């Protein structure tokens, strides 16, 4: 038994939630507590299994570990091939942790505005967990694609059934957007498959693609490699999301129930970044180098544009309500945080545009930190929403006085999100910026600017995002928590124990990793080094 666990650690982490979901299907509907406990256990087991995973993980190696490999569909040479390295281990941990936290955060599901049964909800949630973990572990492109699509389905229903007033629109939009991306990914995947030749047969083996990236380049030609890269890029960019493919995100976030928002921001967005790193970059490194300046520009646009849209929520955005035909002023706290995600993912992009050790470490670390910090922020928004039943920034005021703990925790997480040194977010953002600043390509001109300055100027522009971030976070904090107390909320209760259980772990991690970031970065630094030298940007000096 023990041996079975050690040999199939990853598979267990992936599929235990699925098994749990199946078991829950057979629990009668009225056994609510049992359903909840069963799902809690199903989410707890992967989290507990992460302990031996971390223990046995050898961070000194850049190789894939915990590899499991078996034939799946032999005729097409499709394999069940999973394994993790530095780029994915943090994501597996993040998924396990956030999923577990979200089950606890869903405990009060009976009191939600939309109560459509709890069995389906928890089943779908666990199914989602399996899909997400699978994406981060799959080393076979076909398997990756299956997990990728598996995520789509439960997410669609979770938003569409348990969401807010415009849930159907938001869910449909999310679904179609991602589907368009999937289709592009599918096309490139098939193209790769039919041009591959592993021992005389076609293959979906991602590592084979990576090892034979130069072969793919010669057989496709640089033009078609770029087409392939862009196809994958759009597919992943929709998930990240990268401007202009981001508009599904504010709607999905605003309509999704709190735990689903947490997963959406905490894990789903990372699937996009991860896909870019693991597949686009590794299969088409040459195109990645060509694409780097565009990536840089997109990163800067994401950071500034996202921050501006966040800031707009404070003044309020006039918007035509299609159903009533009236102009409403939208001042949604959740939307503010949703757009701040767009801004924060921009840091990942500039780190990835540079592909220096600092840049990629920053990007991978930012994936983790954003998951923790923004996950916590969505939980915090949910706490207030559960009490006030609205999120209008302008209708609160002075809440820190009756809610000292809630106000204090929110302050810390806001500070973490705006990149206060000493907290985790600062380290990753600083690394991304440093990475972007290290990039320098004097032989080329971009937008009429020498490559020697292009990256530096854009990084400088990105740094403005830090000022804007301080602006919208502090201002919304001021509107909601400071000033004299809005008497409407004089009797509001402070954060409950259950809510504390969901948020405090994230708070502790945020502070701890700000002081000791190497706890996390050591896990992936060697994989990052290998990755950086594999891509080999012109400014990377060997040795």
């Amino acid at each position, binding site marked *: 038994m023990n041996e079975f666990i050690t040999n199939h650690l990853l598979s267990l982490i992936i599929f235990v939630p699925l098994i749990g979901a199946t078991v829950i299907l057979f629990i009668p509907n009225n056994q609510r507590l049992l359903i909840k406990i069963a799902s809690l256990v199903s989410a707890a087991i992967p989290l507990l299994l992460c302990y031996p995973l971390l223990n046995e993980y050898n961070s000194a190696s850049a190789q894939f570990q915990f590899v499991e490999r078996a034939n799946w569909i032999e005729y097409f040479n499709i394999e069940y091939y999973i394994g993790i390295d530095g780029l994915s281990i943090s994501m597996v941990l993040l998924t396990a942790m956030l999923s577990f936290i979200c089950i606890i955060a869903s405990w009060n599901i009976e009191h939600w505005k939309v109560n459509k049964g709890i069995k389906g909800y928890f089943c779908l949630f666990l199914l989602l967990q399996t899909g997400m973990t699978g994406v981060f572990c799959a080393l076979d492109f076909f398997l990756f694609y299956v997990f990728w699509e598996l995520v789509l389905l439960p997410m669609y229903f979770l938003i569409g059934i348990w969401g807010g007033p415009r849930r159907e629109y938001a869910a449909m939009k999310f679904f179609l957007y991602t589907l368009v991306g999937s289709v592009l990914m599918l096309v490139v995947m098939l193209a790769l498959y039919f041009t591959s030749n592993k021992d005389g047969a076609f293959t979906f083996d991602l590592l084979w693609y990576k090892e034979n990236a130069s072969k793919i380049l010669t057989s496709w030609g640089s033009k078609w490699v770029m087409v392939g890269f862009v196809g994958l890029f759009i597919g992943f960019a929709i998930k990240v999301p990268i401007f202009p493919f981001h508009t599904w995100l504010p709607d999905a976030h605003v309509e999704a129930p709190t735990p689903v928002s947490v997963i959406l921001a905490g894990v789903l967005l990372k699937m996009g970044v991860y896909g870019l790193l693991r597949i686009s970059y590794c299969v088409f490194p040459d195109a990645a180098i060509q694409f780097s300046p565009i990536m840089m520009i997109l990163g800067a646009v994401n950071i500034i544009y996202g921050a501006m849209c966040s800031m707009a929520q404070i003044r309020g955005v006039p918007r035509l309500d299609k159903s009533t035909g009236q102009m409403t002023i939208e001042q949604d706290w959740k939307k503010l945080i949703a757009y701040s995600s767009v801004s924060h993912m921009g840091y990942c992009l500039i780190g990835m545009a540079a592909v220096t050790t600092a840049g990629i470490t920053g990007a991978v670390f930012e994936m983790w930190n954003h998951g923790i910090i923004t996950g916590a922020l969505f939980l915090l928004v949910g706490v207030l929403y559960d009490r006030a039943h609205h999120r209008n920034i302008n209708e609160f005021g002075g809440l820190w006085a009756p809610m000292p703990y809630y106000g204090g925790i929110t302050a810390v997480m806001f500070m973490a999100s705006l990149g206060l040194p000493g907290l985790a977010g600062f380290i990753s953002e600083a690394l991304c910026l440093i990475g972007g600043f290290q990039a320098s390509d004097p032989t080329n001109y971009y937008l009429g600017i020498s490559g020697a300055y292009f990256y530096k100027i854009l990084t400088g522009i990105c740094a403005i995002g830090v000022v804007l971030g301080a602006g919208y976070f502090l201002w919304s904090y*001021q509107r909601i928590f400071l000033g004299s107390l809005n008497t409407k909320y004089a009797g509001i209760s402070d954060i409950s124990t259950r809510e504390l259980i969901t948020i405090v772990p994230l708070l502790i991690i945020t502070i701890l990793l700000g002081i000791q970031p190497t706890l996390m970065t050591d896990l992936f630094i060697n994989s990052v080094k290998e990755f950086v030298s594999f891509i080999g940007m012109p400014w990377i000096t060997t040795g």
Partner: protein
Amino acid sequence: MGTNNMLFAVILLPFAGFLFNLLAGSFVGKKLVSLVGCGVVIISFILSAQIFMSSFLQGASTAVQSNSIRWIDVLDFNVDITLYVDHLTIVMMLVVTGVGSLIHIYSVGYMHDDKRFNRYFSYINLFTSFMLLLIMGKSLLLMFVGWEGVGLCSYLLIGFWFDDKEKGISNSLAGMKAFIVNRVGDLSFTIGLMILFTYLGEKFNVWTLDILKIKDVVATNETALNIPLLTAVCILLFGGACGKSAQIPLYVWLPDAMAGPTPVSALIHAATMVTAGVYMVARFNFIFALCPTALAVVALVGATTALFAATIGMTQFDIKKVLAYSTVSQLGYMFLACGVGAFIAAIFHLVTHAFFKACLFLGSGSVIHGTGGEQDIRHMGGLRKKMPITFITFAIATIAIAGIPPLAGFFSKDEILWKAFSSNLAVGKLVWIIGLITAFITAFYMFRLLFLTFFGDYRGHHHVHESPFTMVFALIVLATLSVIGGWVGIPDALGEKVIHTQTNKFEHFLDKSIPHEAKSGPLHKENSHEHHSSAEFILMGVSILVALSGIFLAYYLYMKKKEIPAKIASSFPELYNTIYNKYFVDEAYSSAIVQPLIASSVQTCRFDNTAVDGSVNTIAYSTGNSSKYVGVFDNNAVDAAVNGVANEVYSTGGQLRLLQSGNIKMYLSIAVVSSILIMAVLWSILEWKQVKDFLVSLGLL
């Protein structure tokens, strides 16, 4: 205790105090909170003093540093947590912990009735900890952690009374303004830091943010340096200092910061945090000294700020606002000194300013406390009889800031003026004149404040009382320091003439950290001492004369002919109003930057809703519509039997749908059809032979 442990203890003790007061403070009672809150800082002071005695006064008098703790470690970007104490640091440490201890003790009395007493102490403990990190961090990044950390504490403490019925909103907005304006400065600082980092890395292959290593690289490659680039770095770093130390154009947050409790204004917004920018420039003297243009910028910004803020100080009626503008002005003085290469004089003035300005702020706090929260000097007057100790200490500090010998302010201010005058830099004489004018105005508005507050008849309605012992104790100590604090820096010229020894101990002490000034290099004339000293004496006389005339003018206008100030104000209404309203700088920033930024953010979001999202919706809508026509075509063209089956499937499918709006099947089919189309197009273009072969092998072709 070894030096290593002592260094960490100096920082960690206040941090422990922070944790204790934050987490346990509301359960343990005010006595224990104040005991812990003050105790940790006092012990930090004792430890600092011990380090000072053992490592600097005796023995080799060399810098000490702690062990390194691994912090960020990413191949070519490594930052360790290392504490480093040299002569400059130890001076700052003594000021921060020493003045800090006094202000902590004072706070026990001042904040006694506050409902968030424990939170107050936890914040100022945290502040002390971050401030110490700022000055003790060996790496620029560690310094930056402290730099932002003190900004956070400043934010929290300015908005400390965030739920006040009347002022809650303006208090919290003031805190926010401070943080955001500082962030603008930090943006400049960060960019400067990154340029420096990558420049040294690319050119000399030294990837480091360690201040000592940067110093080494700069020293060993002095001839190979790219001076224009370093000038840009210096100006960008100075931009950060402009934010933290409230210089033009980023000074606007400091007057508003007076919304915080008065001891906070004394500690953070006068004595310590706001001087961090001066400290930073002094710390990087080795780069600044190489860039005359950057120095000129620093000198001019400093001098302009000094004069500009002093003129505003003349017209204000809020006792704390007067002191706030005075602080801005005095900080300008310090930068003026840095800009003429007199870094040691700047630090000297930083120290004496910490004494007398803390004393002034705490005195104003005592006045506010005694008059029941009154801050308008028009409603004060005659307090000298009712609050004698506050009066005497306030008066001493006022004389000190005005620059009357032998009080502390005289020596430091005179040193700056002399260094400016004797500087080789082109701007030297100009900033000297501005400095002299500022000295005159400073003496004037400070005595105006003194006369209006403590002399004449009481114009308020409150029962005035002297403050409790914990408060006046700090006043007495600080007033004493305001008198004697300058004696460690009596100019050598004077000392040699009178007692035939070098008396400027301060300069000789700091020489070891800031050698550039001693060497003089391009910055100072190295003339014969004799010629030097006679000029120095003349200038001393001039500055004393200037100060006295400022005092006399204040006496004449506010004690003798009290009707004149109002007349002057009414005869130049535009000028007076412009100055009284602080030159409308806040309004200008609001309409030129803040409002346009917010408006454009709203426009961006509307663009996002209408253009970006709108086009997405349009595509979805038109695809849906056109698929209807395709569907119609399909229905009419395809066999009726097939149609029937399809309809059957469609209706059962409809029942299975969970969503009412479900067009999902249609969308799915569009997706599949379009993906096949895309593939077909790609195929026809690429003519992948293998694809063909594969399809042939399946028997499809």
